[in-house]
């Protein structure tokens, strides 16, 4: 299916950065998936340490674990103490194992909420960087309530009265990603993906053969352009030619500028309005769909 299905159908309504048209027409969906997962791609800490050189990482859910798959802490950004969250995949094999390839256990979400409550207490805005294949599909995660942890996080973000901006910087894998991406603004790096299921999982469900991941990726509409067209993200941040890993500094500057541009107006917004907008952003996130003449939820007067 053509990548510009949505733009044809509904028209773009959010921003797409100043991308070079050349590249966006030449990469296949699977090439984008591979760029999003590229082992040299910048990870959360690469951005956070550039944005806030005085970053202090905090640890622990204050219940029973610390989750190294999620980095959380505070730093000064644009002269203001800011809470940073970010999935962290790890560079070396040892670090990948320790960080579980960026796949969070329940305690990661609980750590995030604990520190988000500090953000509320002290009035710090929140920046969340998303880069995970998904929440960890393991027995320990189930035993410690991964479903409830994600569910509770999704609900609590709507009741967190400070500005939140999020960006998918690599893989945005299903509920594990969404649990860290309920925000006032959600951006995507150009070659990142955001999906209801990974291509492998989708192939496994559809054909019981996860080798058919390339076909599945084509079907899933998971590129930044698809998401932008569907109205799920506000902006796509262009990457340098060849991908983010080719130029860390350039990508970081572009991402930082975009995040700040979106955060800035939120800082002066009254809290009630902020939360109401966040509510409506997700409550009517399928509104482009609803606007389709032959589709969906019809507005109906209240009982």
């Amino acid at each position, binding site marked *: *299916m053509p990548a510009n299905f949505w733009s044809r159908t509904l028209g773009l309504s959010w921003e797409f950065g100043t991308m070079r048209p050349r590249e966006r027409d030449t990469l296949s969906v699977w090439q984008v998936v591979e760029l999003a997962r590229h082992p040299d791609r910048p990870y959360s800490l690469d951005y956070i340490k550039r944005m806030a050189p005085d970053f202090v990482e905090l640890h622990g859910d204050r219940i029973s674990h610390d989750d190294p798959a999620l980095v959380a802490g505070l730093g000064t950004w644009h002269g203001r103490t800011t809470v940073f969250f970010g999935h962290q995949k790890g560079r070396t094999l040892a670090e990948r194992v320790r960080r579980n390839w960026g796949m969070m256990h329940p305690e990661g979400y609980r750590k995030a909420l604990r520190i988000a409550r500090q953000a509320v207490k002290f009035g710090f805005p929140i920046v969340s960087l998303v880069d995970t294949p998904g929440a960890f599909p393991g027995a320990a995660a189930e035993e410690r309530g991964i479903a409830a942890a*994600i569910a509770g996080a999704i*609900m609590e973000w709507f009741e967190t009265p400070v500005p939140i901006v999020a960006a998918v910087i690599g893989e945005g894998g299903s509920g594990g990603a*969404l649990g860290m991406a309920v925000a006032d603004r959600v951006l995507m790096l150009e070659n990142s993906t955001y999906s209801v299921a990974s291509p492998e999982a989708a192939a496994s469900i559809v054909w019981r053969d996860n080798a058919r991941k390339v076909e599945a990726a084509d079907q899933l509409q998971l590129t930044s352009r698809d998401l932008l067209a569907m109205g799920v993200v506000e902006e796509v941040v262009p990457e340098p030619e060849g991908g983010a890993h080719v130029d860390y500094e350039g990508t970081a500057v572009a991402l930082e500028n975009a995040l700040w541009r979106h955060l800035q107006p939120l800082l002066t917004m009254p809290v009630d309005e902020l939360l109401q907008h966040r509510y409506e952003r997700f409550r009517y996130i399928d509104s482009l769909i609803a606007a389709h003449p032959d*589709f969906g939820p019809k507005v109906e007067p209240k009982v």
Partner: protein
Amino acid sequence: MSLPFRGRVREGVLLVSMVHVPVTGTKLPPIALSTNCPSCGVGLVPEELREQAYVCDCGHHFRMHGDAWIALLADEGSWRERWADVRPHDLLDWKVPKPYQQTIDQARQEGLNEAVRTGTATLAGRPVWLGVFDFRFVGGTLSIVAGERLARGFEQAAASHTPYVLVTASGGARMQEGVLALMQLAKVNAALGRLHAARVPYFSVLTDPTFGGVSASLALLGDVNLAEPGAAIGFTGARVIKQATYADLPPGFQSAEFQLECGQVDLVVPRVELRERLARLLDLYTG
């Protein structure tokens, strides 16, 4: 800290436990059954099983679907379905393994509406909002329409201060609707947060199976979470966990009883006691 303590007293309260609550609201519809019970192997007599709320003598709880759940919980004649005319469409041009539109059309020809139906009713005389999943409709998956029905219901229950009873059975988010299906997790939880903020009681009844995006959104956030005996409840299915981690999973992993031990479920309630228990909880929480 700003919450006022609201004292309320029921004078001469009649304890619900002393009042008979029928097992079902009305006679259950027939449902498709295997010929033998998968737990004890006994040959099944459909009409007998129907009389005992589709629970085998051995305790096996057969899966019930949307209409059966409505019949079980809603008092006769009290069910008012809402937004039943809102219906799904294929928007992503989904083709594999078969076109999504064909999947939808087929389910609707079988008389199914969507994976979630919602409306108002009385339960043993107590007014409730009721949302029921139907596993027959694309595995009970959370779709845009399902999410919309749920979110609207939560909003209206919050506005009218009516307790909400949910019955889940789902494989998760509906892949065929792509990332917009994923976004339903946020959409329903946003609305659910408003229900909680309005201090309206919310009871979640977890039935077999409840997984993925549904357990990771509205299913486990009840004021009280009730589960049917033996129901499989989790985030990732056991098959995928085994594939991903090569782990041996213990017997009973992800069962309702496992979730009780893991602190996620308040009560494992046999189906024949469910209405009585919900009625008692409704009294306690609206007391």
